[in-house]
């Protein structure tokens, strides 16, 4: 299957693109996807914590099963609104 990976903020800048497509074996979960991302882009997620994952604009856990053409967003720590 193929999913569309979307990245934002510092991850977008590190990747040099706001989205890429990623081929995964059938039956892959979000955790599998993260491992595949780390293999393909070893420095992308370094030091980014907590990292949230959304599938089709809904937050999910690592065990979430992916389907063909899902949109998977890597969400680095958010910082909307105002500071302290």
């Amino acid at each position, binding site marked *: 299957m193929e999913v569309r990976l979307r990245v934002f*903020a510092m991850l977008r800048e590190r990747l040099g693109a706001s989205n890429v497509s990623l081929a995964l074996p059938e039956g892959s979960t979000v955790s599998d996807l993260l491992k595949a991302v780390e293999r393909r882009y070893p420095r992308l997620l370094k030091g980014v914590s907590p990292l949230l994952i959304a599938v089709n604009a809904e937050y999910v856990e690592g065990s979430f099963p992916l389907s063909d053409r899902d949109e998977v967003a890597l969400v*680095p720590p958010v910082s*909307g609104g105002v500071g302290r």
Partner: protein
Amino acid sequence: MILVTRDPLDPEAITAEVRSEACGGVVTFLGTTRNETDGRRVVSLEYEAYEGMAEKILERVAQEVRERWGVDRLAIAHRLGRLELGEVSLVVAVASPHRAEAFAACQYVVGRLKQDVPIWKKEVFEDGEVWVGAETSRHPSTVV
């Protein structure tokens, strides 16, 4: 009303949206671009969102406010893109029959933006730039 937009925000108009004759208390919070962070001079700010999802999570925040304080006259508006110093990046307007609920709900929404609403802020300094939260030691959940 939930709004995530690249256009400048109009706090007066947004406040007018939530006012009603049944509400004696109206609280409007404005977030504006500050000129320094930890002693470093800020030149501009840049906001980015996962558009579509940000609005969806903000709708959920509005629902939380309805359930917790019974307040349904609420507006949350967030600006995206590059902002110059002093520009308004956030407007939260709340109207309720009495003031306590309006203050509490407004405070809650501003804090909630630091949890899981997919919006990011980059501070551009004279000598560099930083994505707040991701590249600083300040943990987002401890910042209100």
